[in-house]
């Protein structure tokens, strides 16, 4: 297949740092983050927007980075799993996942945590149903949902403190 597109420069802010990415316009943001920005915390699961493993925040909204063409990241503020901890202090949701064994094989974990952090930012005191809805786009292949759910319930108690 012929190479038709030229690489473009995409300027965005990733985890608080102004960054210029050089890539093809329709490269998946997921790949650009992992391979060019060196942020391999964002995982690829299905690659078609079904599993949520590649969830990141773009301008405050949860998105599947496998479905975002790099060109559309121009000017965006992006937050990945690497941007959640404050120096050595983990985000409340990360800490709760540690305490409750919310991570098993780990592939879904960054996406789960991003989805939970995003939910708590919108709704600091979600009901059980709201937590289930907020996480419904994130699949765990180990099916360890009980501990993931417990981690988020725990993190909710702490949510007001650090959003």
């Amino acid at each position, binding site marked *: 297949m012929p*190479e038709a*597109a030229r690489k473009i420069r995409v300027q965005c802010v990733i985890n608080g740092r102004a960054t210029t990415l050089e890539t093809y316009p*329709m490269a*998946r943001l997921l790949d650009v983050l992992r391979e060019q920005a060196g942020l391999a915390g964002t995982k690829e699961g299905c690659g078609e*927007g079904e599993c949520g493993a590649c969830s990141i925040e773009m301008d405050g909204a949860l*998105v599947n980075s496998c479905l975002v063409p790099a060109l559309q990241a121009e000017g965006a503020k992006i937050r990945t799993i690497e941007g959640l901890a404050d120096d050595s202090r983990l985000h409340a949701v990360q800490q709760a996942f540690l305490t409750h064994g919310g991570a098993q094989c780990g592939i879904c974990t960054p996406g789960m945590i991003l989805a939970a952090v995003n939910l708590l930012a919108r709704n600091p005191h979600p009901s059980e149903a709201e937590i289930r*809805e907020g996480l419904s786009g994130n699949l765990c292949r180990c099916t360890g949902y009980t501990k993931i759910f417990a981690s988020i319930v725990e993190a909710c108690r702490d949510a007001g403190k650090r959003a």
Partner: protein
Amino acid sequence: MRSYVPAYEMEAPRDLSAALERMAREPGVWKPFAGGTDLMVLLEAGKLPHRKFLSIWGLPELRGIEVIPAHVTLGALTTYTELRRHEIIAREFPLLCQAAAETGSIATQNRGTLGGNIVNASPAADSPPALFVYDAELELVSTSGARWVPYHGFWSGYKQMDLRSDELIRRIRLPREKTGWKQYYRKVGTRRAQAISKVCFAGAARVEASRIVDVRIALGSVAPTVVRAVATEKTLRGERLSPAILSAAQEVLAREIAPIDDMRSTARYRRRVAQNLLAEFCEALSA
């Protein structure tokens, strides 16, 4: 297999008129690309035959929800999340809100757009049944001007629509006239979130003294496009609710739709469920 990404071009026009000029100058060459929740899936699967896209995601002319006494106008880039959060949509167009809430996941709802859903023209799309019930109209724009068309009739067959290669959808307009109507929406799929529907049903009716004065019914996943069940509506219109009229309407509905066997369900199951949803709708009307 994944597509070869360097083969795909994408540009971001600075405004709507630049986008339209591009589409007019090279008809059929540049396709609008909104939130990408369908097109990027095709890219990943190696099934995106088109090679040149105009990213319209950043165009403010295609955004926003405007409310005036006669109708609500939605920019084509209105996302499902924006629909869910809008107070007047929630109050007056609850079926649309419900459809938005049942489309994909939160992440999909943040990027998927109403205009994209319409032009992607999946027979299983969740929002079109609701839009049909509300008698939505579409504004199509090109460099030669704008035209409003009724949404019902916009599609002529599987992925076939009344949209020229130099046009795109700018706005979707919903008349604010169904507020007194009883409304019903149900999507049947394998899982509450994410799953694509096996059958999706939206209905609304104005009922006076248990007589159906007027009614709208639309279904997804039962034909090559989302369809309005016009013959079924006609069977019910003007009638008093009764088991006899329901069963007559169910007969008509079964003939009016054309479901198929596919990976998600069977024609037989879909036809039966569509009839059952009609029964549940009628039950809701008498409640």
